[in-house]
């Protein structure tokens, strides 16, 4: 995943921290205090699109074949998450029971063109 300089126009992961205090939810979400609401944005020029290791997916494999047989692929590719991880939450439910659960695929770890 390309390192994301704040001003880079290329596809990369933009880090964005959300504090639950700012949501006014610290009264029912006990842990953690916030989480990374990362997202993917940036351009996917042809030389970056679908190159293996950047967006390892079936879609990019097909895309590579198209590219290999055609210097100017008709379609463009998009800057998408390619790796995510779960977020462990500890919160109070409506009956004030303490619930610990892991919400899958909550945090974007890596982005790529696909």
């Amino acid at each position, binding site marked *: 995943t390309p390192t994301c300089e704040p001003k880079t126009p290329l596809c990369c992961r*933009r880090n964005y921290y959300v504090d639950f205090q700012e949501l006014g939810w610290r009264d029912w979400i006990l842990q953690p205090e916030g*989480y990374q609401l990362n997202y993917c944005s940036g351009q996917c020029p042809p030389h970056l699109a679908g190159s293996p290791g950047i967006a390892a997916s079936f879609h990019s494999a097909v895309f590579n074949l198209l590219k290999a047989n055609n210097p100017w692929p008709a379609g463009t590719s998009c800057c998408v998450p390619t790796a995510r991880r779960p977020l462990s939450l500890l*919160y*109070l439910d409506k009956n004030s029971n*303490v619930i610990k659960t892991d*919400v899958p695929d*909550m945090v974007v770890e890596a982005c790529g063109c696909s």
Partner: protein
Amino acid sequence: QATGSACPSCEGPAPALPAERAVVLELAKQQILKGLHLTSRPRITHPPPQAALTRALQRLQPETMVPRKEQEVISFATIPDSSTSICSSMLTFYLSTLQSHHLYYARLWLHVLPTLPGTLHLKIFQWGTRRRHRESHGLLVEHHITTPGWHALILPSGGLRGEESGIVKLRLDCKPLEDNNTAATGQPRQPLDTTEHHRPFLELKIRANEPGAGRTKRR
């Protein structure tokens, strides 16, 4: 080097404009509620006392990951104020999640006072209301307790059922095996502690019901 910032990531993304920030916060709210399968944030009317919460959270393995589609639950007992002794009152737990989840692990945590009169013989009954509101109860488990402090009593998860309303009622029947305290004072001392930060609680592990699970079992 002199001009550039010593720590490239220190600049960080420019703080978002208030309007954009509000959109992102709303997005975060939607993402979390969706991840927790909630339509709106819960309204907490009676939060558990902080001391009880802190103690109970020490029981949850803080570092372990919860397997996918599973949850660990801690539910504090509601004890009627009028109860003279916990040994003859009802512990009520509000567990609406039991209706949509399969319970596969249950422990009842009790705090025994240092004034424990020798060995305590404890029976735990599940109290329920059947059809036509006739009360029914079944013995869940028996334990002999010989030391004061916290005790985690395993309950048969198969036997623990929530009512339609999601309420679980447990009744404790405890007798000191030796009655030396009763003889002395005429009244068995209160062996179990129900002060705020020693309030009894259930520790449960539940798994989301697979769609159609009930039919499979019936078949």
